[in-house]
């Protein structure tokens, strides 16, 4: 850099530069709309926050409960309107506040003094009047591969009649503690939910009846068989929770369901009276976990941004 301004810390890392853009506080948003929710397997809520800004917003959130949280979307819906989506585990009605930061071009200020650093096009890369973002800590988290500590067993084979009231798909595995250092009374986090996983189990029962005679373990006459199959599944996305100065990476159940099939077959004097079936191939996700690379958690101090 032959001109301009650069401030570095004692690790020679850039804090402010006329070549880059710092983030500044746009606003705090505390009244999301609930855009999706479910109560099965621990439950979840998808919260939508609508933000108006001229440049791309970068969201941070606080964690008011011990549940898991993660950002799942930042979308420019129209003009300067953005919708930021965040998911949380559980069915509680306590929602996080969203702290939104943008580069200095997206924030106005009426203060008449401070320090401003300009880029060579005259736009501000840093403006001390606009509450610049201060990073207080960070970590990288990796989610466990399997959200369930036990395999799924013992569910009904017939027409998904175990429903979703069982708890076998409720996630109960999380990462070990990851330290984020000392935090304020209201730490705020930037974390994107990238990891995804799916778990399923299939239960099948085939019942054979002999209406005719049973001779030497063979059915002579009319026989009937019935097969019922139910496949129970759930889909999860990654989330983090905080406990003291640690964060933990776990799973949020965002969808669940069941698929069933039933088949009857008849035989008469060993002759198959009709019908036939076959299955094959793979589903796109079947007991799979994807995007497990470690994910950054950036920590700030929410008390600076009232």
């Amino acid at each position, binding site marked *: 850099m032959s001109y301009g301004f650069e401030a570095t810390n004692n690790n020679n890392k850039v804090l402010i530069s006329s070549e880059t853009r710092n983030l500044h506080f746009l606003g705090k948003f505390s009244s999301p709309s609930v855009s999706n929710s479910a109560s099965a397997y621990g439950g979840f809520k998808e919260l939508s926050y609508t933000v108006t800004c001229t440049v791309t917003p970068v969201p941070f959130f606080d964690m008011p409960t011990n549940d898991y949280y993660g950002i799942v979307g930042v979308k420019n819906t129209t003009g300067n309107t953005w919708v930021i989506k965040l998911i949380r585990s559980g069915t509680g009605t306590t929602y996080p506040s969203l702290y939104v930061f943008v580069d200095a071009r997206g924030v106005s200020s009426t203060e008449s003094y401070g320090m401003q650093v300009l880029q060579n096009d005259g736009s501000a890369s840093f403006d001390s009047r606009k509450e610049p973002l201060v990073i207080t800590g960070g970590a990288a988290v990796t989610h466990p591969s399997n959200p369930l500590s036990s395999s799924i067993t013992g569910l009904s*084979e017939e027409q998904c009649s175990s429903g979703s009231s069982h708890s076998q798909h409720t996630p109960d595995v999380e990462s070990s503690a990851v330290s984020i250092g000392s935090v304020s009374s209201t730490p705020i986090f930037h974390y994107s939910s990238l990891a995804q996983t799916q778990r399923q189990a299939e239960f099948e029962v085939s019942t054979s009846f002999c209406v005719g005679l049973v001779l030497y373990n063979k059915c002579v006459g009319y026989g009937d068989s019935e097969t019922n199959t139910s496949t129970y599944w759930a889909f999860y996305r990654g989330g983090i929770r905080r406990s003291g100065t640690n964060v933990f990476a776990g799973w949020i159940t965002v969808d669940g369901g069941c698929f069933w099939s039933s088949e009857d077959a008849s035989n008469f004097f060993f002759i198959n009276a009709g019908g036939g079936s076959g299955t094959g191939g793979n589903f796109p996700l079947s007991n799979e976990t994807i995007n497990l690379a470690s994910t950054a958690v950036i920590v700030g101090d929410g008390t600076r941004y009232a």
Partner: protein
Amino acid sequence: MPDIVKPFTVLDTKEETDGSQGVTFAITKTQFIDDATNKTIKMTTYVSIPEGEDVNTFLFTYLSEGGWL
């Protein structure tokens, strides 16, 4: 585990991030209700097996404790 006919079938294995093995397996059990009726139950599910454990031995013990064997 001795080389015997296994009452379960391992359908897929994958390595998990902590070194465990994720195993999808199926097991079938037939019950003779009476002379004219029998019932075959099949379960296909997934389990994480700790690093270093033998898959067949683990599943045999796991299914025995679960009442399948």
